[in-house]
């Protein structure tokens, strides 16, 4: 009898490292259909999306700016996912960090930047941790599914932000639903003159670097990875599973909180509900596409920023909708997840 059968068979390492490349390729094939139906040439569109932004200095700077929050949320999600904790709540944790950053930012008028900015970052990290604490405790002690709790807390956070901005924090000067502007000393310095690339980029790269070291070179990292790969085995080996997972969830929340501070201190200088363009959710794509590695997360964040920036010019030049970038990102996530799954199995024709 002939038929299809799916077998478990892990691919060799070199195939696995090519998965992101395959995923991107297949995604662009799929997206071509949409581009054609929008009345544009796919090749031209891909040129505008992927190449054109790299040829202009200002666009290159934009990419770095746009990648900054994605690196942070990508690193945050990676840390949690590696420990087998599926933190879908980076978006809410980002806003928790943004609230803390905006609040501390208005209080530091008398401090120099060298004190004000670290204080904001610390506050944002702690706020992100605090927002991640409840679902982490529920998961570790009561086995409540963290996917559900972290996801739903994102909506709760949006309402808190909305309450703050329409209530106590409404800008007294303009009356807009945005918080008062933070002190000058809390505003992040610009790294590249005449661009909006700010200190947040260094914070993001440093977070990725530190977390790479923690995961690869410390006992905590080794044990966390062991838990993520075989929880039962880790338990057998005497690894304190609960405390390690709890810690990973909190660090993840803290780093997502840094992304919020970075957007407040580096771009907007106030809290608003449009502060994040779903950076927390995009962090999941970044982490997945980066194959849960730190260098991978940084590269994936840069790549997604490139597409976002490219979509702006593509829509200007070719008239394709700017939402093309969102479609590409979503397709990319689905394709890379499918590849990751297929990579663990093999389809065989049975006779």
């Amino acid at each position, binding site marked *: 009898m002939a038929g299809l059968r799916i077998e478990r068979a892990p691919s060799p390492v070199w195939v696995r490292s090519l998965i992101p490349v395959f995923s991107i390729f297949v995604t662009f094939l799929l997206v071509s259909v949409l581009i054609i139906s929008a009345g544009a040439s796919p090749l031209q569109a891909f040129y505008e999306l992927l190449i054109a932004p790299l040829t202009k200095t200002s666009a290159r700077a934009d990419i770095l700016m746009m990648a900054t929050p994605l690196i942070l949320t990508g690193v945050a999600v990676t840390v949690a996912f590696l420990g087998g904790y599926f933190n879908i709540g980076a978006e809410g944790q980002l806003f928790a960090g943004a609230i803390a950053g905006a609040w501390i930012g208005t209080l530091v008028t008398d401090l120099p930047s060298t004190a004000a900015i670290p204080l904001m970052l610390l506050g944002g990290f702690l706020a992100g941790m605090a927002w991640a604490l409840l679902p982490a405790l529920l998961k570790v002690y009561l086995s409540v599914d963290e996917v559900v709790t972290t996801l739903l807390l994102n909506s709760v956070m949006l309402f808190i932000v909305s309450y703050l901005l329409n209530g106590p924090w409404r800008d007294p000067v303009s009356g807009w639903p945005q918080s008062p502007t933070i002190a000058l000393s809390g505003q992040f310095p610009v790294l590249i003159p005449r661009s909006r690339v700010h200190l947040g980029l260094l914070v993001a790269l440093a977070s990725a670097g530190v977390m790479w070291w923690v995961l690869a070179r*410390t006992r905590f990292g080794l*044990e966390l990875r062991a838990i993520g790969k*075989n929880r039962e*085995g*880790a*338990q*057998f080996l*005497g690894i304190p599973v609960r405390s390690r997972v709890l810690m990973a969830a909190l660090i993840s929340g803290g780093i997502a909180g840094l992304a919020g501070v970075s957007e407040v201190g580096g771009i907007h200088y106030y809290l608003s509900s449009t502060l994040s363009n779903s950076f927390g959710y995009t962090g999941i794509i970044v982490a997945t596409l980066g194959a849960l590695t730190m260098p991978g997360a940084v590269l994936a964040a840069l790549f997604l920023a490139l597409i976002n920036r490219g979509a702006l010019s593509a829509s200007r030049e070719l008239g394709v909708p700017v939402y093309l970038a969102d479609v590409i990102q979503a397709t990319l996530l689905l394709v890379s997840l499918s590849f990751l799954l297929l990579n663990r199995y093999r389809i065989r024709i049975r006779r």
Partner: protein
Amino acid sequence: MPAVEMRGVTKRFGPLTANDGVNFAVERGEIHALLGENGAGKSTLMKVLYGLYQPDDGEILVDGRAVGFRSPADAIASGIGFVSQHFALVPRFTVAENVMLGHEGGARLNPRQMRAQVMIAAESLNMAIDPNALAGKLSVGEQQRVEILKALKRNCRVLIMDEPTAVLAPQDVEALFAVLRDLQKQGMSVIIITHKLNEVFAVSQRVTVLRLGKVVGEIATEATSPSALAELMVGRQTLAVERNTDHQRQEPVKLEVRDLKLADKRGGLRLRGLSLEVHGGEIVGIAGVAGNGQSELVSVLTGTAVPDSGEVLAHGQPYPLGQPKALPNLKIARIPEDRLKAVISDMSVADNLVLESLDGFTRLGHLGRQQIREHAERMIKDFQIKASPGDLVRTLSGGNIQKIILARSLGQQPEVVIAAQPTRGLDIGATEYVHHKLLEQKERGAAILLISEDLEEILQLSDRILVIFEGRIAGEMSAANADVQRIGALMTGAGG
């Protein structure tokens, strides 16, 4: 003409032959026991009959006609039913809905008719069962009866029951047997897979005994005796009595287990007051049919389960129950039943070798990568592991994975070794290596508790043999006076 006949059925899984030219026949209106130790091939044979596996050789006849089952659907269509140990009921459906599921007979449901049909079927078997009850709220025994009703609804004429009493409380066992006898009166054939001798005699008319995938006997139940069946089941073996027993028992007790009790999630007692002692320089083997508390005993001793009562002492000190982390420091080495739960397959050999004892390889939380690598290279050499430190464990053979576990546990000069099924699934070379390492630890003076389903292995290595039955030690003997027939009887609850 038999209701079902299997002729020369062979089923292989890779290098393992689970069924080897098996002939098996069940008459109409007969309760037929399929007896054998775990791994004898009983379940495999019945899965072939039910179409879950395709045989590599041999044929199946139903009512004298040759059939080829490609899936259970084919087997069901030929009137074969299978009640597995794991019930397939929808907990939130009623009994009637569960029974009728897949046989609604049209797009529109007729709940009243469904209930009536189920009632009639239940009454014909003297089953007291409420068709409106939710399946999830029923007791295990009742759920099993619903499974039987499901099979009947599919016009089953040969019912296979896979270890039906394993999940039942004693009072439910008698009720089940009554149902089976009623089925028999209606002309149905029943095959009951079991490794319990008392059940064979309680309910069956004929018995087929499997050992190592082959039929070793087919007898009318009334023409045989428990001891004869026990002997068929475990086989006669010649003992390799070439063993140094000089320093046996001269060393003090290093592992002591007192009155251990442990209940499973359903509340059934898996360990019922188990006690044992192991001296230094001694291997104590625990023989028994799987499912009599071995796994639970291993879980307690390897720190993954906490007993409800009782105590364990290692060299006189209370054992850190439920704290696997504390065990290596107390010189307790663990070789668990499921080796894939003791390694992280997606991590490297080097990492796996140190995960249990990271204290020695970290300074202020920072890993000594160089140290870890050197340790791995040393262990790979000492334990002849065919791998390099950076290889992922998942790419290694079972024997090499077991060597990693041996290196990790025995490399620390243990005082107590808990070895559970240490050679399961290994080839001859790797098996000999493991045996050699265990004997080496014994010579060093370690106390070794060997839990194995492989009786030959127990006889070969142990200085003393304990037989476990239903969560207790049912008997003890020194290796010198080991008597296979007596062990077999004790294992199956037939001896005393």
